């Protein structure tokens, strides 16, 4: 969980929304006042690799979240990550700049 942080995007799975080198601002503040919802783009730490990933929430079930990249041809999804829990979500992408 982080209040506010900048992230540099590496990879293609969120194209065309985000490309490699793009910078985004993300934070947990929105989720202090509302729950994550389908369509939100989130950053989260993969429990297996400890790497931070950026993906979009596609399904929600019993407080767990199925995430997937927009560029489905070139993206891993929760089939790889497993359904992630809210505590794994570091924040919501607020804007790109």
């Amino acid at each position, binding site marked *: 969980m982080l209040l506010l*942080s*900048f992230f540099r995007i*590496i*990879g293609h799975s969120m194209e065309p929304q985000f490309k*490699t080198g793009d910078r985004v601002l993300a934070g947990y503040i929105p989720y202090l006042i509302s729950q994550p919802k389908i369509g939100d783009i989130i950053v989260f730490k993969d429990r297996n690799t400890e790497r*931070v990933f950026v993906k979009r929430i596609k399904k929600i079930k019993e407080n767990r979240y199925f995430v997937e990249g927009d560029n489905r041809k070139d*993206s891993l999804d929760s089939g790889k990550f497993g359904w992630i829990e809210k505590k794994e979500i570091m924040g919501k992408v607020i804007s790109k*700049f």
Partner: protein
Amino acid sequence: MKTAFDFLLGIVPRQIAYAHCDIPCGIYDPHLAQVSAHTVIRMTDLILDLKKEETETGDKEFMHKIARYTKVKEEHAEMVKHEVRIIWGDYFKEEHLKDYPDLHNLVFKIMKLASKTRQEVDKQSASDLLSSVQEFAQIFWKTKNRETVKVSSSYPTGGEIVLPK
């Protein structure tokens, strides 16, 4: 003159978020290796430029900064090796070697240089590492029939990044 946005950029932490995988999924990009090589240069510069303040806490602050810069230098030199190894081992095929017979030597050189930048605080080795990684990036994009262009990195290290056109 600094804007409020510049101020925000300065105080808010910055991290990397991967929109990436290594199944292998066919998604390879030497960009991160280049960024990491730039980081090695930056950390080397910071260490070389660091002066010990003659204050009560000067020694501690000096050691603290040295420790932090060295840690990041170590991590990013290793990241260069990791990223280049993945592309070299998973992406490149034997047929590429017909067009780029020195590829193995180049990768070997990158591995050695990255290790040297970890072992030493040597600006020349760090610069050589970036040049070699850029050469590797150019070869990579050529195998994908993509022309490359060198653009200004806009990092404190100056220098360039190789990108596909």
